């Protein structure tokens, strides 16, 4: 079942439609409801390898639907700790629960101050309203 449109208040948002949940010096990353809705049902998640590094504003993987492919942009920089295997095996999980079971990677942040440049939920809602 596709999720209803939400933008939780405890997350930080990147203009390329990615979210981050910050927990100490670690962060969980994923794509927003808006992003999964624009793509349609996902059929493939090309994930990074644990141990690799991701850089803020740069792509760390791809998600694909039948007729579209999208880079996943990192909202924060850091080292990949874990990849969500469930999203790899059943990519539709991202559609069903983009902020829960459909998370994509967990990183150790290399520059936690970067979080200050991200949007809160209200700012992100305003951002997508413009699109």
């Amino acid at each position: 079942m596709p999720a209803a449109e939400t933008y939780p208040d405890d997350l930080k948002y990147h203009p390329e439609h990615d979210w981050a949940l910050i927990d100490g010096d670690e962060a969980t990353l994923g794509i927003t409801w808006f992003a999964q809705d624009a793509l349609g049902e996902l059929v493939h998640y090309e994930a990074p390898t644990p141990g690799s590094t991701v850089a803020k504003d740069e792509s760390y993987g791809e998600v694909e639907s039948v007729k579209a492919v999208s880079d996943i942009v990192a909202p924060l920089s850091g080292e990949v700790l874990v990849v969500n295997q469930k999203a790899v095996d059943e990519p539709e999980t991202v559609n069903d629960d983009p902020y829960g079971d459909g998370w994509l990677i967990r990183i150790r942040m290399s520059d936690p101050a970067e979080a200050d440049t991200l949007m809160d939920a209200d700012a992100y809602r305003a951002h997508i309203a413009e699109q």
Partner: protein
Amino acid sequence: MSYLSLTDADRDEMLAAIGVASVEALFEQIPPGVRFGRELDVPRALPELELVAHLSELAKRNVHTGVELSFLGAGIYDHYVPAVVDVLLSRGEFLTAYTPYQPEMSQGVLQAIFEYQTVICELTGMDVSNASGYDGCTVAADACFVAKHTSGRTKVVVAETLNPQVRQVVKTYASGFGLEVVEVPHRGGTIDPDELAAASVDAAAVIFQQPNFLGCLEPAPDLAAAAADAGAHPIAHVDLMSLGVLEAPGAYGCAMAIGEGQSAGCPPLYGGPHYGFFAARQDFVRRMPGRIVGETVDLDGQRAFVLTLQTREQHIRREKATSNITTNQTLLALAGLVTLTWLGPQGLRGVGETCVGLTEYAKERLGLPLAFERPTFKEVAVRLPRPVRDVIRDARELGVHPGYALGRDYPEMDDVLLVALTEKRTPADVDRLAAVLAEVC
């Protein structure tokens, strides 16, 4: 002109609907400076009857295999194309359809491509085949692109016994990909596995040909192992018509199997159009170039076919696509499917056995020294006592084209003639070749 359908009355009505006085008004968007101001300087229009006469006259000035007994091969082979292929080619639905973007309109061609992919996988021992590439040259370049992206390495190794045109195309493409191409020389007609192993270090892929361009059978399993041991993807360039008797590349560890499909289903046609086939192990599926058809179901749950994994392709992934290919060679690939179906497993084995038998017979009957002491499939390289080009000229005077001058590609083989024998040649044809060569040599 008879291909246009509008009457004067139609034009008037249409112009009125558009709201312009003449067709000329529609071209006002073209800046006057780039309008073409005169009539095209091309030959006059020909009615159909004159068109046929003109093209027949051009066709008559070609010496084809119906008027000259030909032993030419070297990449393009005169195998028999069965009459049932005409059923396919004469059906306008196949002939005049575009790429099957809309599956509900195109189940027939989609299913046929799925069947073709299955046949290619069966013959090569691979898991996945695309719907075809342009020819046996460009699929090799495609394979290099795949190998580069899956290995992260920037060198490919090609056997010197790989068809020279294939090597040339690989080199042309490789400059764009940023790939270095290294050639491994032959030793007595085939590649030495140890030498190949040494060259394969840090290579993305190794491409060799079985049977090779010189007509010899390579120690293919040893070559594949040598490449794989060095961490390079082994890629076999094979002839579909050999795969009833020769081992499938998948059985000896190849990562990809590619080749020119012409020998199965297509007449020589002065070089094309034919089809290149491209098959690979499952792990390459997301890097495959070109169209791929997959099985699925429709809303009612009935089996149906559709172009799938399209996110690999240029119309979606654009500059990150696995290839720029869009138009391919579907109609020719389907001619291959019909031909291979007509042959069946027994027929394909029969073709192979006849080719090998005729080649052995030719070795004996020609009585010429063999250029290479290696097992062969359907081509044999022999040494001539006179320059090959002169022999070809003199033999053609007597109505026989004796084969391909290997000196065209290998300067040290100035005296070597490559003779091709398909099941369309008979022992009596070989006898005639022997007599003609005896006369002109």
